């Protein structure tokens, strides 16, 4: 059932989720236009991952509505999920399938024709630098390889909107560069990318829009220029969510190591050389 319309790729309204007494997401409203490269930033525990999970149908919201390309995610999940690709934060792929098998499985789950799966998987594995490891099981993949494989699985069916949760977390610079190249090519075709991160530099480089989350709410959103307001994005972010921490006072015991080791232990260390 198509709803909404216009040039919105994603429309989120009144999204809420609580775990017991904790309000993980406390009313999020956000519209993401087609072709955007949209970053969602926030400190740990801000509700970014929970929002993305609810937006992609992996977690049922307590309240609110999510519309993807005019399709309501929670009323017509099958049709809405056809439009999207997901790279979740916890990369829990089937450990004992090979990279090639994971792509095939992902494609067949989405009822893609086998010929299309084969040709796209071939291209993706080559582009992502996984061609040589295609027959190795995921259990033997590095973190960067897993991210790239999961990205391949998310792109295989040619989604209109791609959701990525911390895509550059624990990824080496080479894999990170490959992922950026893929994403740029993807948005170049008019598709939409939404990704969460707490690395401001990455968001500033890649995104044209950004939303700042804190304590389950959106505290600001708009184009990068609008949110920065003439400052660095990191400075704007720190101001929006509060500096946090107790300041320079306290933790006096964090003195140089030599002053901290008890005498008895130090003697033993020195005798061992």
């Amino acid at each position, binding site marked *: 059932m198509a709803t909404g319309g216009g040039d919105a790729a994603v429309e989120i309204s009144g999204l809420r989720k609580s775990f017991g007494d904790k309000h993980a997401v406390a009313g999020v409203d956000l519209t993401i236009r087609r072709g955007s490269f949209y970053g969602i930033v926030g400190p740990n525990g801000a509700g970014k991952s929970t929002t993305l999970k609810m937006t*992609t*149908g*992996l*977690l*049922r919201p307590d309240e609110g509505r999510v519309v993807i390309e005019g399709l309501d995610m929670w009323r017509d*999940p*099958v049709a809405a*999920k*056809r439009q*999207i690709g*997901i790279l*979740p934060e*916890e990369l*829990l*792929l*089937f*450990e*004992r*399938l*090979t990279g*090639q*098998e994971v*792509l*095939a*499985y*992902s*494609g*067949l*789950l*989405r*009822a893609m*024709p*086998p010929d299309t*799966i*084969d040709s796209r*998987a*071939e291209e993706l594995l080559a582009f992502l630098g996984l061609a*040589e*490891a*295609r*027959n*190795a*099981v995921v*259990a*033997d*993949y*590095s973190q960067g*390889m897993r991210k790239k494989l999961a990205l391949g*699985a998310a792109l295989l069916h040619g989604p209109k909107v791609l959701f990525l949760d911390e895509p550059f977390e624990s990824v080496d610079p080479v894999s990170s560069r490959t992922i950026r190249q893929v994403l740029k090519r993807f948005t170049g075709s008019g598709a939409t990318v939404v990704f969460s991160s707490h690395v401001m530099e990455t968001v500033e480089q890649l995104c044209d829009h950004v939303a700042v989350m804190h304590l389950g709410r959106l505290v600001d959103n708009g184009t990068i220029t609008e949110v920065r307001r003439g400052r660095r994005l990191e400075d704007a972010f720190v101001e929006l969510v509060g500096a946090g921490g107790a300041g320079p006072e306290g933790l006096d015991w964090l003195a140089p190591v030599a002053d901290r080791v008890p005498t008895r232990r130090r003697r033993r260390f020195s005798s061992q050389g």
Partner: protein
Amino acid sequence: MKFALLRNTIKGHAGWLGVGLAYGVSIIFGVAAGALLLLSRGAGGGATEGVSLAIPTVLFLGWLIGPIMTTGFDSTIDPSKLATYPLTSRQMTVGLFAVACLGGGGVFSLLAVAGLVGAVAPASPLALVSFAAGLSVVGVSVAASRAVAALISGASRRVRDTLLFVVPLVFTSIGVLPQLLNLAEDDQVADLGRLAPAAKLIATALPSGPPAQALLAASQGKAAASLLWLAGGVVWIGVMLWLWSLALRRMLVRAVSAPAAGARDRQVTASRALYWRVVNWLPRTRVGAVAAKELRLTTRDPRQRAALLGSVVGAVPFALMGLSQPGPSAVLRVSAVAFFVGATSTNLYGYDGASHWMNVAAGDDARADLRGKCLGRALIGGTLVLLLVALTATLTGYWSLALPAMALGVAGLGLGLGPAAWVSVAYPWPMPPAQKNVFAGANTGQGMQAFVPLLILSLVGGLVLFGLGSLMARDSRSAVQLLLLSALAVAIGVGAFAIGMTRAIVRSRDRQPELLLALTKA
């Protein structure tokens, strides 16, 4: 910390953990009561000797094999979590040893041994030796168990996978031995008696042997011998702790898995690669893909291999038992294998765990996912039944019962798999992930929650299957009766499967995120 872990584990799951506890205690007390009954009936010195050696041996092997079979049964603290602390491996060994004895397994073992000591200890100062020997039995069992687990955890993934398959295979095969040796014949007791000296030798040679012999010697009033055996037990504990310490040192600095390079270079397309060659005929649909994935993982995932092996080795002895009794039951009993394979599939999503997000992200299709999973299981169960029917029919000459046996197999599979599909959706629980530390899993009692309905459904299904089999055996000379009963068996199997599946699909419709959430709670 261990108490805090146990408290937090119990929080919110106390009810089902209580059921699990009651079940475990009932088994232990059952064993203990049996042993005491045997002794009280005046079975004589032979029985005392047998029980004194058997209980420590069973306990030792249980500690050794249990964690490997279940890949994470105990909620013991994962040593890798302590790797960053400035602790020597010796300090860790001593601490973890104490921690292991505090868990459910340790307490159960102490209870079981206390029962044994109470039964065989003499009313003299030598009772102290009996007491120490009992503690040594538990100590050496725990230390050996942890040493072996740490050795396996420190090995490469390939070695670990192989061991996690081979070790349970060797030990569970012991259950098939009596059938293979045809011990179930008339003079069963006499035949078993012939094995007694060998069993005694093996029991004594195990690390649990010396403390067990100390118990026995103390019960016979042999002070010097009991003290010597006890010293031997203490030496074994020391050796095991030392081995454990060495293994820990190695395990904590070793990579979890080898780099992906060096994998076999197979030039097949992606959609072809997912399917075993023998099941290449499966459709390239969601159902086919899920079935193909299940079959792939059944052979590749050591947890799934061990689980399948457990259900097969549990059923095959029963199925082959009929070979020693001439008659039609030999062929018909084979259907039990199908029932076991089906009925032990009560956690169809468990091994997927949090990886199930791939299915959820691709759009909710609970019907296709369940059909695919059941198809995978049915292919395994069906193939086994086919092979065993052919084997038993050839050996007994009852080829006329091959088709009825297959029909009974369909009934067994349906009666097992249908309810299992429903239980899988109604009570999903994540299996411990295959990881470096085989003790890392924490049991939250969810398995016990699924176990109760499984037990009830298995009893009902088993009775129906037994009834059908008995009728077929009675009417084995009448082709018409057999045909009618075969049709009835197939109808019952298909009906049970259809009912179970329908209930499962209704239960899981539009609830995939909740199912995923349940599978993510590790």
